[in-house]
């Protein structure tokens, strides 16, 4: 059976001088999946996302995003993806509406469609009343929601989300989770990183685990859990994969 892939990399490598941040990873992200990309701090998750979204060029290896090589045809790939990067990528001195207008214009979306979609998204994210407020006056949570709205506005086929639940309150988090599930149920693909393993466990259909720039496990979440032994939570599986057990600190008896 031919499996349609939203993201596929072979030997993806990225160096910063002598430091190898991503070390030959082979990603396989099926279309229509919600792929949780996990790893400890500094494992290379954000660098991988930067390579996949065209912000960084890989030092070695190849990539295919939605069937297109993003290095050969970056504009075509960027038309079909949405990204919420770690720095949230928003103009401080634009309002929420102007931000969405900017995104609509660079994607060549006509004015009526843009207005309709922006209105829906601002309502959904509960940012309607802040639509004419400058982003510089937004809280972190509001920025995150606006960044997600900006990523969704062009109706992408593939979403890259770098820590979308960080700094988000419980209500907004629930809304975003529902939104992401709805996006996937309509055929979209999500590639997300998060340190909140409970959320990844609930949402993801597939996971990939990276540690020290190398892929240590990848596949459908059910298969990985079955392989690790019955009854293991994703947290236990994750800690086992990244070697967290060995790093248990000696008892701090002075605390």
């Amino acid at each position, binding site marked *: 059976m031919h499996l349609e892939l939203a993201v596929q990399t072979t030997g993806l490598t990225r160096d910063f001088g002598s430091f190898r941040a991503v070390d030959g990873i082979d990603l396989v992200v099926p279309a229509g999946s919600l792929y949780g990309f996990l790893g400890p701090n500094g494992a290379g998750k954000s660098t991988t996302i930067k390579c996949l979204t065209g912000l960084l060029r890989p030092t070695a290896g190849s990539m295919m995003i939605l069937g297109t090589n993003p290095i050969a045809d970056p504009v075509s790939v960027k038309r079909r993806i949405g990204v919420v990067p770690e720095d949230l990528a*928003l*103009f401080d001195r634009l309002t929420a509406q102007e931000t969405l207008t900017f995104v609509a214009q660079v994607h060549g979306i006509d004015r009526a469609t843009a207005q309709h979609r922006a209105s829906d998204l601002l309502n959904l994210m509960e940012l309607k009343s802040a639509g*004419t407020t400058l982003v510089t006056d937004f809280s972190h949570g509001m920025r995150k929601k606006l960044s997600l709205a900006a990523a969704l506005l062009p109706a992408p086929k593939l979403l890259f989300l770098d820590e979308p639940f960080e700094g988000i309150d419980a209500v907004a988090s629930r809304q975003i989770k529902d939104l992401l599930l709805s996006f996937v149920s309509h055929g979209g693909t999500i590639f997300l990183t998060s340190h909140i393993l409970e959320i990844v466990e609930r949402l993801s259909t597939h996971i990939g685990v990276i540690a020290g720039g190398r892929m240590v496990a990848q596949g459908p979440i059910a298969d990985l859990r079955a392989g690790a032994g019955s009854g293991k939570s994703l947290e236990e599986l994750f800690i086992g994969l990244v070697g967290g057990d060995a790093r248990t600190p000696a008892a701090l008896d002075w605390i």
Partner: protein
Amino acid sequence: MLLNSLENTGARDRLERFSLAIERLGPIMAAVFLIPSMLGLAIVASAAGYSLGRGDQHSLLFEALRYLLLFIPIASIVGPLFLPAADRTNPVRLLLLPIPRRTLYAAQAATALGDVWTVIVLPIALFVPFGLALAGALDSAVVVLAGGAVFLAVVIGLSALATSVLHLIARDRRRGELLALLFILIIPAVSMLPGLLHGRHSRGAQRRGSATEEVHLPVWVAAAAERAFAVYPSELYVRSARAMPAREVQTAATRLGLLAIIAVAVHAAGMFVFGRILDSPGATGARRSVTARKAWGMTIPGLTPGASAVALAQLRLALRTPRGRSILLSPLVMMAVFAVVVLRRSGGFDLGPVSLNGGLGFASFTSFICLVATLPIVVNQFAVDKAGMTLALLSPLSDEEYLTGKEVGNALIAFPPALISLVAAIGIFRSGSPALWAAVPLALIATYLLISAPAAMLSALFPRLVDLNSIGRSSNAHGLAGLLGMLAFVVAGGSNLIIVLAATKWLERPGLVPILLLGWCAIAFFISRVLFAVARRIFASRRENLALLLSDK
């Protein structure tokens, strides 16, 4: 080959290292110059103290130190305004420490010891007494040393008070931005006026052949100014230092006592304001809204929607940040100052090598200044967007669209003030050849066409994350980009000047000027397209560096 080398990661890293080294050169050069300056000042102070000790109360060296000290209290008040926000003490962090408030205040005040204006006081406060001691006036040396210590305390207190007051004002973001803008606009204008007006008096005097032309102040103003000057901190120190060797012990004690009272008062005020900050250290400020109607659907004719969106975002950045607003407004303030001066003196005046005779010279100069004023944004056009730049880089914009959008956006920032200057000059002066008036906008267009691509190259090669809410160094472009950008402006502007001189002086046909400049505009357009292709390649090779700027990899 050079462009290809930029695409190589190693070369890119070398360029970044070079760029950082250039950025760090400024403080190193300052330190290099500061050390011999301080040594020189110590020698001068010793000699001045020695002269005082030998009975020369009006020693030229001590008079020179007096004038230098006059600026110190002013610098300690104004100086903190120009420091980057990140360089100021963060009271929220301090509050987390188990330290008494008085100690926190002392720690904050002690940071003023690193300020240049405080460092200047140190050799004077130490070495004037040293000179006095060398001259054998030991008792005077002790008193003057005490006076120097108290004066130093006043300077530190003023700096701490100014920093705290600024923090109180600026924690309301909107109020802070307004303050920043006012300073940017008012300080240069005010600082230029005395010199320009003085120039008028001396020139007028020269014209009339009289020796001097004195300006008389009302008696009460002069008396009040004299009384205020007598209790000015540096004057109190100077007068007490002069009184002691002359055996005017009471005068010296009175001045020293007054100086000590001022020191106590300044530090009390400083502690009070600092306490207010510690009580509520968070930032405040109402959210700023923009009219919804403006947000939708505006597209600049002739551009793709993407390029138009980039251009409008660039213009909005300038309109909504203090530094951006100052770029738009300060040339107009300057123009108003020059207009007043030009109108008050018949026949114009010289500004260095530039002669502003009549409306044409005035219009050319001020509109050129309007273009040059955009330098901090134009030569750092990508990085000024900060996280917005990442959004642009993630967007499906071709490099050409992005650079075109930036080029047009920068033009939208530069041209309105320039055209306002031109129209105002026409309205005010009305004289001169229409052909030459028409030449001014053509010269501006040619200049902008020639500098836009080099500016994009410099922005890609030497990006610098800046804070356009700041009025100091932290809102400036990369030093090298600024320098080369200024050079590009001068070369581009100078080419117009050569054409004008060729037509008016050598060919003696002023009517030819607009025709020649129109032709030059066409050539400049062609040159700019060639340079633009190079800029596009440089930008493409530097996309990664720009993307990594925020994460500082």
